[in-house]
C-alpha cells in the first residue's frame, strides 16, 4: 500500500508504485568482512529524498555507509554483520521509491573512465593552448623582435606543445592507426596528420631560425576537437546510465532451488538451463522456463501483447518477461538469460542489426568526400610551388599549411556537436538515444507503426461502465489482496481501504474471502455462479445477493489521439500493428484516429509487414515495447521503445523514452528533423569555409595567426549553430 508520505517529500514527484522487493543477495560483494551492494534507486529527485533514503538505510543494523548518487541514481551501501540484503531493498521500496540491485562490475565504470581520459586530455590541451598563446601571440603583433628572441619563444612553445600534443592527441591517433591499417580513412586520419605535420614543420622552422611556427595551432585544434569529444562521451555515459537504470528495475535475479531443496537468490545471468527456479507471485520471469508444478495465472502482456492473463499449466514454456500473478510456480529454466528468445525472433533481430550497420552516416560520407580532396589539394600545391621554382622546404611548408588550415575542425565538429545538442535536448525530455546515427535515421522516417498494448494503450485494464458503488467498495476488499490486473483495476478505482479476512486465491478462477461477515467471491463468471456477458469481465458475488459484473478495457493513453494527429500534421502516416484480437485492435485504432490497422500479428508477421513497407519505399519508425515487437524494432528503419519495455526490445531500439507519455514520439521526431537540418547547415558552412581557406593557403598567405583565427572562428560558428537545438521552441512547449 502506498501511504501519503511515500515518495518524494516535496510532493512534486509521484511515488513509485510499491511492488515486489527484489532479493539482491546475488549482487552483494564482500571484502574483509565488509559487505557492499550497489542499488539503482528510482524516483529520488531532491535533497529531501536523499536524506530520507540515506537516513532509513543507515538506521538498519550494521550499516556503515549509505550514499546515494543523485546524478546517476546509484546507491552504495556497506555493512557488517548478518543484515539480510533484502531488508535494504524493502526499506527503500517501503519509502515509495523503486529499488533494484545492480551489478557493480557493469561496464558503466569503463564508460566513466573513457570520459575521464577525454576530460583530462581536454584540460591538458586547454592549459597548453593558454600557455603557448602567451608566448606565441606577442610575435604576431611585434614584427620588430630580433630573430634570437623569436627563436627562443618558439622553443618555449615547442617545450609546451610537444608533450601536450603527444598526450592530448592520443584519442585521435589511437583511432586513426587501426583505420589506416584496414586501409580506410576516418576523420581522425586527417586530424592526426595535420597535428603531427604541424609540429614537425614547426620544429624544422624553429631549428632553422624560421619565421612561422604552428605550435599554437596544433594544440588549439586538439583543444576544440576534444571539447566536442568530451561532451559526446559525457552524454553517451549519461544516456547509457539512464537506460541502465531503467533496465535494472526489470528483474535481474532469480530464486534457484538447490538440490537439497534450499532456495538461494542468484543473478539471472547465472541461471543455467535445467536449473529449478521458484517464481514468487508478482515476480517477472528472467529466463525462458518450463512450468514444473504449481497453479497460477500469468500475465503475458510483454510477450504476446495480449491484455488478459491466462492460466499457466504444467509443461507450458513461458518466455522471459512473463509475470506470475497469483501463486508461486516452480519452473525449470530451458535457456540462459542471454538466449531467452524464440530462435526465430533471435534470427530476425540479427538480420535487422546487420541492416542497420550498413547505414552510412552524413559525417562518414562527408569524411570520404573530404579527405582525398584536401590531400590532393595539398599535393598539387606542393608540385605547383616546385614548378614555380620555390625551394623544396618552402614548397613542403606551404603544402603542410594547406593541410593545417583545412584541418577538419569545422567538419569534425559539425555532426558531433549537433548530436550532442540534440541528445541533450532529448535527455531533458527523458529520451535516451542509443547512437548518434539514430537521429539521422529517425529524421528520415515517413511512416510510423505503433504496437497497441503498453505502447498506444496503458497496458493495464481500467474499470469501465456502470456498477453499484457499494459493490465496488466490497469487491475492492478482495481485490486489494490479488495481483491480477483486473483486481488491481478495481482496487485502484476504489482507492485505499480495508482488506477482507481469510483470503484464498484460486488460480485461474478468482479470490474468495470474508467481507462484512459473509463469504464473498471475486472472479470469473463461472466461479462467481453467474452467466458471463462476454468481453473482459470480473464477477463479484456475496452470499445472499445476486452477482455483480465489472467490465474492463485496456484504456488508450489520454494523449494517443493528440499524438497521432500531430504525427499526421508532420506529414507522417500512422499504422497500428498488434498481436491482440481484431475486435480490440479495431476499437483502439478508432479511438486513436488510426485508419490503418492489423490484428493478431505474430512476431514474425510484424517483421514481415515492416519488410513489405520498406520494399514499397517507406521509411518506417516502429514504436513498441513487447518481446513480440523486438524483431520489428530491430528490422525497422528506426525504432523507439518506452522505458518499461522488455530488455530485448529496449536494446533493439534506437531511442528509449522514459515517462509514460506518447508525446515523446512526436517530440523525438521533431528534434531529430531539426538536428538533421542543423547538420546539413554545418556541412554547407564547412564546405564554404574550405573554399575560402584553401586558396589563401595555396598562395602562401596562411600565417599562424590566420590559421588560429580561421580555426577558432569556424569551430565557434559550427558549435553555435548546433546549440540552436537546445533553445529552439518545440511544438508542445516541452523544455
Amino acid at each position: 500500500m502506498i501511504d501519503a508520505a511515500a515518495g518524494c517529500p516535496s510532493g512534486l514527484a509521484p511515488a513509485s508504485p510499491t511492488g515486489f522487493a527484489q532479493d539482491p543477495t546475488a549482487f552483494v560483494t564482500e571484502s574483509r568482512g565488509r559487505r557492499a551492494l550497489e542499488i539503482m534507486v528510482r524516483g529520488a529527485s531532491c535533497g529531501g529524498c536523499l536524506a530520507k533514503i540515506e537516513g532509513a538505510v543507515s538506521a538498519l543494523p550494521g550499516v556503515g555507509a549509505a550514499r546515494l548518487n543523485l546524478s546517476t541514481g546509484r546507491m552504495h551501501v556497506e555493512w557488517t554483520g548478518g543484515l539480510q540484503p533484502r531488508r535494504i531493498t524493502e526499506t527503500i521500496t517501503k519509502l515509495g521509491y523503486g529499488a533494484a540491485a545492480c551489478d557493480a562490475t557493469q561496464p558503466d565504470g569503463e564508460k566513466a573512465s573513457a570520459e575521464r581520459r577525454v576530460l583530462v586530455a581536454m584540460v591538458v590541451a586547454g592549459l597548453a593552448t593558454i600557455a603557448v598563446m602567451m608566448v606565441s601571440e606577442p610575435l604576431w603583433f611585434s614584427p620588430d623582435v630580433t630573430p634570437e628572441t623569436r627563436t627562443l619563444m618558439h622553443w618555449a612553445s615547442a617545450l609546451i606543445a610537444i608533450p601536450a600534443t603527444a598526450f592530448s592527441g592520443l584519442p585521435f591517433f589511437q583511432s586513426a592507426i587501426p583505420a589506416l591499417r584496414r586501409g580506410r580513412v576516418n576523420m581522425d586520419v586527417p586530424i592526426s596528420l595535420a597535428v603531427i605535420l604541424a609540429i614537425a614543420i614547426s620544429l624544422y622552422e624553429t631549428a632553422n631560425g624560421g619565421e612561422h611556427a604552428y605550435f599554437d595551432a596544433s594544440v588549439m585544434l586538439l583543444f576544440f576537437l576534444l571539447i566536442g569529444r568530451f561532451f559526446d562521451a559525457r552524454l553517451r555515459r549519461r544516456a547509457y546510465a539512464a537506460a541502465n537504470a531503467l533496465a535494472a528495475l526489470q528483474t535481474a535475479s532469480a530464486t534457484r532451488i538447490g538440490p537439497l531443496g534450499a532456495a538461494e537468490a542468484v543473478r539471472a545471468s547465472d541461471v543455467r538451463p535445467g536449473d529449478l527456479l521458484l517464481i514468487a507471485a508478482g515476480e517477472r520471469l528472467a529466463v525462458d522456463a518450463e512450468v514444473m508444478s504449481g497453479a497460477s495465472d500469468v500475465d503475458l502482456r510483454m510477450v504476446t501483447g495480449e491484455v488478459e492473463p491466462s492460466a499457466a499449466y504444467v509443461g507450458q514454456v513461458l518466455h522471459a518477461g512473463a509475470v506470475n500473478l497469483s501463486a508461486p510456480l516452480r519452473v525449470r529454466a530451458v535457456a540462459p538469460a542471454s538466449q531467452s528468445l524464440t530462435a526465430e525472433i533471435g534470427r530476425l533481430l540479427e538480420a535487422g542489426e546487420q541492416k542497420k550497420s550498413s547505414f552510412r552516416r552524413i559525417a562518414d560520407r562527408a569524411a570520404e568526400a573530404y579527405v582525398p580532396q584536401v590531400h590532393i589539394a595539398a599535393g598539387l600545391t606542393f608540385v605547383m610551388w616546385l614548378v614555380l621554382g620555390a625551394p623544396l622546404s618552402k614548397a613542403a611548408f606551404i603544402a603542410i599549411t594547406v593541410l593545417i588550415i583545412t584541418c577538419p575542425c569545422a567538419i569534425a565538429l559539425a555532426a558531433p556537436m549537433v548530436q550532442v545538442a540534440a541528445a541533450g535536448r532529448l535527455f531533458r525530455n527523458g529520451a535516451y538515444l542509443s547512437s548518434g546515427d539514430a537521429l539521422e535515421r529517425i529524421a528520415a522516417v515517413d511512416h510510423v507503426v505503433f504496437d497497441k498494448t503498453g505502447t498506444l494503450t496503458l497496458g493495464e485494464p481500467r474499470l469501465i461502465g456502470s456498477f453499484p458503488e457499494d459493490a465496488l467498495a466490497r469487491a475492492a476488499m478482495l481485490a486489494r489482496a490479488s495481483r491480477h490486473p483486473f483486481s488491481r483495476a478495481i482496487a485502484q478505482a476504489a482507492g485505499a481501504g480495508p482488506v477482507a479476512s481469510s483470503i484464498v486465491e484460486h488460480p485461474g478462477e478468482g479470490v474468495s474471502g470474508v467481507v462484512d461477515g459473509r463469504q464473498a467471491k471475486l472472479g470469473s463468471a463461472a466461479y462467481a455462479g453467474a452467466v458471463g456477458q462476454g468481453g473482459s469481465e470480473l464477477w463479484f458475488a456475496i452470499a445472499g445477493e445476486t452477482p455483480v459484473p465489472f467490465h474492463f478495457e485496456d484504456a488508450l493513453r489520454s494523449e494517443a489521439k493528440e499524438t497521432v494527429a500531430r504525427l499526421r500534421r508532420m506529414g507522417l502516416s500512422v499504422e497500428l500493428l498488434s498481436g491482440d484480437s481484431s475486435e480490440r485492435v479495431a476499437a483502439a485504432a478508432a479511438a486513436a484516429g488510426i485508419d490503418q490497422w492489423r490484428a493478431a500479428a505474430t512476431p514474425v508477421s510484424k517483421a514481415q509487414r515492416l519488410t513489405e513497407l520498406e520494399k514499397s519505399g517507406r521509411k518506417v519508425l516502429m514504436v513498441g515495447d513487447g518481446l513480440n515487437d523486438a524483431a520489428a524494432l530491430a528490422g525497422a528503419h528506426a525504432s523507439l521503445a518506452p522505458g518499461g519495455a522488455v530488455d530485448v526490445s529496449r536494446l533493439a531500439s534506437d531511442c528509449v523514452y522514459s515517462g509514460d507519455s506518447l508525446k515523446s514520439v512526436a517530440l523525438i521526431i521533431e528534434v531529430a528533423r531539426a538536428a538533421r537540418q542543423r547538420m546539413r547547415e554545418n556541412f554547407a558552412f564547412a564546405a564554404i569555409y574550405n573554399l575560402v581557406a584553401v586558396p589563401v593557403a595555396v598562395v602562401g598567405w596562411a600565417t599562424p595567426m590566420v590559421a588560429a583565427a580561421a580555426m577558432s572562428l569556424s569551430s565557434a560558428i559550427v558549435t553555435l549553430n548546433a546549440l540552436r537545438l537546445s533553445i529552439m521552441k518545440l511544438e508542445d512547449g516541452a523544455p
Partner: protein
Amino acid sequence: MNVLLYMMPAALLLAGAALAAFIWSLRAGQYDDPAGSAARILNDQDPIP
C-alpha cells in the same frame, strides 16, 4: 628580454599548478555527483557517517 627567462618558467609553473589542482579535484570525486552535492547542502542534520 632577460625578463622572459623568469616569466616563461613562471607561466609554465602556474599552468602546471592549475593542471595539478584540476586532476586532484577530479580524483577526489568532486564531479561525480553534481546534483547530489547541490542537494546535500540543504540538509541540516549532521553528515551521515
